[in-house]
């Protein structure tokens, strides 16, 4: 299994109750299933994943030490 660092941002910090955690996951979809099981309020929320600071679409395999961030809609300015 791969040890992945998960980061939460914006309103998702309140849902997770923390800014980061670690997870054992083999793919982004696997991580998503686990995260939504742990934090059911994530279901139905709008957010994207960034893998090692790159926004990704769809499933990707995860490697040991990867950084997976959950990004709610951006709101700068």
């Amino acid at each position: 299994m791969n040890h992945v660092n998960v980061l939460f941002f914006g309103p998702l910090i309140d849902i997770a109750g923390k800014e980061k955690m670690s997870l054992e996951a083999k793919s982004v979809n696997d991580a998503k299933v686990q995260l939504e099981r742990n934090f059911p309020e994530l279901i139905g929320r709008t957010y994207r994943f960034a893998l090692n600071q790159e926004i990704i679409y769809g499933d990707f395999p995860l490697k040991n030490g990867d950084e997976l961030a959950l990004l709610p809609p951006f709101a700068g300015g």
Partner: protein
Amino acid sequence: MYRLVQGAISTNLIEEITSQQKMNQGIGAQAMFLGQVRADKNSDKKVKGIEYSAYPLMTEKLLEELLKDSLERFSLMDIQIFHSLGFVASGDLSLLVHLSSKHRKGIFAVLEEIVEKVKFDIPLWKKEIFDDNSYRWIEDSKT
């Protein structure tokens, strides 16, 4: 250049940036956008400020790409973007975008496009802090 600033953006920066442009006498136009924290009211509570947060590595990478792309696409002579992180009180500045170019033509449209990109394409988030210290995340800031 871009810079993420802790707290409010100082109004002294406005004079500093505009003065710097004297160094390049090929410049014929400067345009600047200043974003100011508004003291909105939500039911009976008033916004005392906004707390900004970022995904530092990714935010810096995307700001760098935005600068590079904008300089190339719009033939600008200079772009400066300053954005606040942390708490900024109502009435203070949280965003400054400054452009310099040879001519004025098109500069306002380019300025608007860059400001919109900073607001919606860069990983930054904000929460309104009310006068009773409760807060609300801003999730749709298209207004």
